[in-house]
């Protein structure tokens, strides 16, 4: 028993119970068969616990050997919904239909991607200083990112990049390499306004100067990155400008089909009203008026935090935040305690999933982050998310189980 992280297990169990408790209230009024959401989630609990237990029991060495295979399978799974014909194209390509059950391959791809990255980056041949060495991990990340983007699911597609950064950072690769990975993306995003881009380029130059003093990199590399960023910064607005208004809109709605019909911000406003009206103690379990009037979109999936905020108030929210903090803290602790680099990296990656999803999902409900449908682990309705989350915890426990194994 010594090798089992009891706090992690307890935290997870409380989260699962709390999730069911909230879902029972958040499920849409019965009718059109959706009223069975609570029951369906309970049914999903069995495969979830089974998968979690398996992830815990199978020796990590075996899992690590199979990491690339898992990754390959997850890529194939991601391809299936893209090629299967479906009646309502843009929205359902996230799903694979298995008769009565559906699952979202992008959820499993997250874990597979972490295992593959952990194995690759902990390899003895991986040299931290070399930029060339970053190409392969980049490829591992870009593949699922691209496929998920095509579904399209913007919120989930970013997570792969976030994972890579977290793992590389933990691996202590030179800051210049991190800059090399991050800055082109930031350049792209900031290029839509000249002020933000100027700020970006100034910051970039400052960092370049700073790094050159402490972590040397070659002049050519620095110049290459500068040229790349300037190129992106100049090309982006030019290319965007050549598009017609309706083309831009088409791209924006493609990237974010959740964009509400009443213009961006309507869902956020309704969610903020729900949370704000909850006050410190909430309106009471099952009593949310915003929720009952069905003003809230996707209240049992993406906007589940609004229901918690409305019905359970600040106390409920703080409790949930605390639970997630405990979960992440345990995960990170396992990462630092493990003596095996591969496992440490995997633990960091798994914890990062939780950091990212909790922040983006909750941030969206309170208007800190743009609307990008992403489930809240253990709480949001959805079997794939639940199974993936328990697998993640199972793997963390697995790492702890054998922490002295090299």
């Amino acid at each position: 028993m010594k090798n089992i992280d009891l706090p992690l297990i307890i935290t997870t169990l409380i989260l699962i119970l709390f999730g069911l408790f909230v879902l029972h209230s958040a499920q849409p009024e019965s009718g059109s068969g959706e009223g069975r959401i609570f029951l369906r989630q309970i049914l999903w609990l069995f495969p979830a616990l089974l998968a979690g237990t398996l992830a815990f029991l199978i020796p990590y060495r075996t899992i690590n050997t199979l990491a690339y295979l898992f990754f390959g399978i997850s890529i194939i799974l991601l391809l299936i919904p893209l090629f299967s014909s479906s009646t309502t194209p843009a929205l359902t390509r996230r799903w694979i239909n298995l008769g009565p059950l559906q699952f979202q391959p992008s959820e499993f791809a997250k874990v597979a991607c972490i295992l593959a990255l952990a194995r690759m980056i902990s390899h003895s041949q991986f040299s931290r200083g070399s930029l060339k060495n970053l190409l392969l991990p980049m490829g591992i990340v870009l593949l699922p990112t691209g496929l998920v983007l095509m579904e399209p699911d913007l919120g989930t597609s970013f997570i792969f990049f976030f994972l890579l950064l977290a793992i590389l950072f933990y691996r202590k690769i030179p800051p210049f390499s991190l800059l090399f990975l991050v800055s082109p993306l930031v350049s792209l995003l900031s290029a839509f306004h000249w002020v933000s881009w100027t700020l970006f380029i100034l910051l970039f130059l400052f960092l370049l100067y700073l790094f050159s003093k402490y972590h040397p990199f070659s002049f050519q590399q620095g110049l290459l990155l500068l040229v790349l960023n300037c190129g992106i910064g100049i090309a982006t607005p030019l290319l965007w400008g050549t598009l017609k208004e309706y083309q831009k809109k088409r791209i924006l709605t493609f990237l974010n089909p959740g964009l509400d019909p009443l213009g961006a911000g309507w869902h956020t406003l309704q969610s903020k009203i729900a949370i704000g009206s909850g006050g410190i103690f909430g309106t009471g379990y099952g009593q949310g008026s915003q929720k009952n009037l069905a003003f809230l979109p996707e209240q049992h999936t993406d906007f589940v935090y609004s229901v918690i905020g409305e019905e359970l108030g600040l106390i409920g929210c703080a409790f949930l935040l605390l639970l997630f903090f405990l979960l992440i803290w345990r995960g990170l602790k396992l990462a630092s305690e493990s003596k095996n680099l591969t496992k440490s990296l995997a633990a960091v990656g798994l914890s990062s999933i939780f950091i990212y999803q909790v922040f983006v999902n909750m941030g969206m409900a309170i208007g800190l982050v743009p609307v990008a449908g992403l489930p809240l682990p253990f709480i949001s309705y959805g079997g794939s998310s639940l199974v993936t989350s328990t697998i993640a915890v199972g793997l963390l426990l697995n790492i702890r189980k054998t922490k002295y194994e090299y």
Partner: protein
Amino acid sequence: MDKNILKPTRPFLILTSLLFFLLFLRTAQLQVLHHTRYARLSERNRIKVITTKAPRGRILSRDGVILADNRPGYSVAIFPDQLREKEKTLLKLASILNQDPEKILKKVEEGVPESGRIFVAKDVDVREVAIIEEHHLDLPGVRVEVEPLRYYPYGSLACHLLGYVSSITQDEYSTREKRYSRNDLIGKMGFEDEYESFLKGEDGVEFVEVDALGREKETLLEKPPIPPRKGNDILLTLDFSLQNTVEEAFGDHKKGCVVCLNPGNGEVLALLSKPGFDPNLLSRGLLTKEIWEDLANNPDSPLWNRATLSSYPPGSVFKLVTVAAAMDLDLLKENPNFVPCTGSYRIGNRIFRCWKTHGTLSREQSIIQSCDVFFYQVGLRLGIDRLTKKGISYRLIERTEIDFRREGKGLIPTPSWYDRRYGKGKWSWGMVANLAIGQGEILLTPLKTVQFIAAISNGGNLVQPHLMKEIRSPSGEVIQKGSALGGTKSRLPISMETLTFLKKAMAGVVNDPKGTGSLARVKGIRVGGKTGTAQNPYGEDHALFVTFAPYEEPQIACVVIVENGGMGGGIAAPIAGKILRAYFQNNEKLSMQNE
């Protein structure tokens, strides 16, 4: 293993703490600091979303005359969740609107609200609007909304081409993309339908805080209104004054159609189908049943666009095809040794008649005087196989692919068609005599006919007929150009020599003293034409006339068809004459103004 690589996960913990602290602070800000405000918004006070309807794009003629426009219409909407004393309120509203209270109640109870409201009356009179506004305190939950309605300033002018709009049906609503709401108007016919996706605007929204009684308090600062976006304007290739002339020239004839084309690029300059209808009647928000049934059950099918959907027996117009086929196969010399026309011709034991006694004719005169006996013999010399093969190779029974999704198709009866129709060997090869003069089962569409005439006049180019000249965004930016649709699609497989002969013969039809089309003459302009009188099983002959002008550099090609009108030369040719005279007079005026 390199132990230095491992470092405590402190940076990750710090990041997580920071992010979570941020989440907590923001949640607390909403739930503690702004609690009263959000609680108020969520309790009895609600946010009302008001859609501001976007005007549809306009449809204009090539010279900028607005043919389909928008006008403000008043609609009465009910917000069911703000209705108080439902029966009493609705009764009062019904008496103002002069409507059956039962009907209104039914609408409110069975209707599906669109952004919280149900429309009970559309295009309401201004006086009734004034009364409702006056009593608005007694009518909680009732609201008058202004929305753009469709308006066609020239009534039935070019009605088949413009089409009309009407409320979206349940079927259309569920199959269309998301940007429609339940009470939207949608194009149902003609350009309104074909170019719906361009004409449709994007509705705007306003967010208003309302109090417990449903009265508007203030617009929300957090959510500025989204202004509606007007639809795109469409410029047609249609020439407004020519269209007017065409409608006038067609006069009192009840049924038929006219298409005028620019033979250089395929632009449709005028398009008429008779009888027509007034799209204004169909485009009122709530179409009445009587008007609809009146139009739909009319035996003359006023909603049917004859110019694009119908096909007619071409009559003697088809002689142009027959002669071209024979000449290109080298079967018809300048002066063939044919039996002179004595008013009839015997094939087997059947007598085929001519409409006149023509005597011996040259190849050219046979067209000018439209001698049937001459063409019976051309037909026999060709044989049905070669004649129909040639006709099909001229692409006469393909669709022109004008910018209307639905287009009629012609028919050239080939031997295998006859076999299928009557059984092998159960029909006579003498059918070719009839076919050679364009009678019998053969059918051509007006569009295909005019395209063929345009090709004769322009040296053999089959130009693509089209009606869209330009699509302009509300800011005036040109989104699409019709010239992309137009231009030469393919060449007519007829030799240049034959084409020149056909063109010259057509000029003779109008200008030769013996020509059948003399009533289409225009002073100072050399006009080409061909008459056609098509027998049909449904009564009086159809009168046809095809024409182009001027001979030297053709600017216009037309087909005129008067159903059950009688002789082509006597009925259809004068209509074409009127059209051409007005067209060239007008152009002269314009060029004089320009100088």
